[in-house]
């Protein structure tokens, strides 16, 4: 059955998550230039999501099959994004095409 994770793990993860929220909010006041600002914000979001997935959703302690499912979700999300953007990013590269 599922592993029982000690509560202090949850509290530590929560503290980090709150810290990351404050960090993101604080960074937004710096008005960083465009590619940097979104990269930083998304990176922090990914870290938060990873913490929730691994610890709150117990994936760190789950079977390899669960890892496959989670991996499939990430992969497919990435896939639809990349292949769709490949259309929009390559339109109009050569005039008339």
């Amino acid at each position, binding site marked *: 059955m599922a592993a029982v994770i000690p509560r202090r793990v949850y509290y530590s993860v929560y503290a980090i998550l709150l810290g990351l929220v404050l960090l993101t909010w604080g960074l937004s006041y710096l008005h960083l230039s465009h590619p940097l600002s979104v990269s930083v914000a998304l990176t922090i979001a990914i870290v938060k999501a990873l913490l929730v997935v691994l610890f709150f959703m117990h994936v760190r302690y789950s079977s390899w099959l669960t890892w496959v499912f989670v991996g499939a979700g990430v992969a497919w999300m990435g896939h639809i994004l990349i*292949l769709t953007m490949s259309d929009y990013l390559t339109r109009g590269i050569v005039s008339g095409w």
Partner: protein
Amino acid sequence: MESTAVTQHAHYLNVRYGLRSWLLTTDHKRIALLYLVSITFFFFVGGVAATLMRLELMTPQGDLVQSETYNRLFTMHGIIMIFFFLIPSIPAVLGNFLVPLMIGARDLAFPRINLLSWYVFDLGGVFTLVALIAGGVDTGWTFYTPYSTVYSNGYVVLTVVGAFITGFSSILTALNFVVTIHTMRAPGLTWFRLPLFLWSLYATSIIIILGTPVLAISLVLVGVERIFHVGIFDPTLGGDPVLFQHLFWFYSHPAVYIMVLPSMGVVSELITCFARKRPFGYTFIAFSSIAIAVLGFFVWGHHMFVSSQSVYASMVFSFLSMLVAIPSAVKVFNWTATLYKGAIAYDAPLLYALGFIGLFTMGGLTGIFLAALAVDVHVTDTYFVVAHFHYIMVGGTVMAYLGGIHYWWPKISGRLYPEGWAKFAALLVFVGFNLTFFPQYVLGYLGMPRRYHTYPDEFQVLNVMSSAGASILALGYVIPLVYLLWSLRYSPLAGPNPWEATGLEWQTPSPPPTDNFAVTPVVTQPPYAYDTQEEEAPVG
């Protein structure tokens, strides 16, 4: 011969009687039959639309229906046949019935969710039928924006709600199959001892889980834009109508593999049984199902070659589309090799399977024509495309579905079907099908566009051939409906394994008891152990 004797043992059909015992059942076998009734109903509704279309197309002028009406007919034909017949057919009928039996389980993982999926399916069907009766929708089953969101005069919202709801039915079935196959296999039933039908259903379920939600969100966005008159596909806001096509086809291309993969699984079962041989290259066939499922998600842009999609993206999609043909070809070669030097029995299920192999191959090859960018520019939106997908969907999937229904009929009903009539109907379907759809390849190549109710005079002969073929095809579909129902009362009892086939489903009585197996089977043999079967005295 006990043609009218009452079956002696208790089984899932006679364990309880009454409407409530059917409408509140959680038995996967009864739910399969509930689905059988629903999808057969929708098949004939979609068939009526097709009949009216083919009648109109007998003459070059638009004299039977107005163009508005014709648009609604082909839209409804597409929506009903795809969402309410082809996608559910094999998984929800044969899959629901057979998955627990084939893995030695008492039921699926989530029986109540299984029942829920049927009700959800019917709810979606009700919305769509209401839209149809109210006047229908004329956008094509593809709902392209901005026509569907702004200009169409039909019942777009009602119809997309119907399709959205039905998508959940699909998803619930897929969830059930994936979880069941992972967690409830009988002792000794390793993945590589699974029947190939289960590999194909597993692959189908992956596609359903990963693809259907994208259709769902694209339909939501169409609905939002139509209701609120503002949306993300609106060019006046800088929106791109082609974005809808990306979201739509991201699902709808894999959807065609949802429709064809289960039928390939059925064919694998039929070929092995009626050639009495192990499948050639079991592992290759199994993995090719997964390959088709995965690769099928990489090719959707081939529906958008002329849409203003970037040429570079189109080239990538074109190349990938050629690749996806490879695993399908692997299956065709392996089936052929399985038949080679087999002890072939030309029973009706095999006739359907052989028809499948020939017609699917033709449809698949024409898919390569369409994958070639330069060719597609000329034949896209013509009858060439229509012929291509009907060869696969009708010549392929529907034939395999009928083959599977016949093959497992004894297990489902406890009765044999009349073999003579079945062979005759199979032949009618094959002849009618080719007469209907082969001329459409020619018509398309000559330039006749699809979705038009009029055409230049020089195309009439081919159109008349096509319509004549359709009438033969229709007859071929009605005849099994009659004799299968007849067989329930008047046919001889089947016994547990009339085909002497391998597979756990044949190790239990026909029809099976509610819990499928008196004792959970233990699997020790490889699958399709036909060569180690001992010769038994012929049955009957």
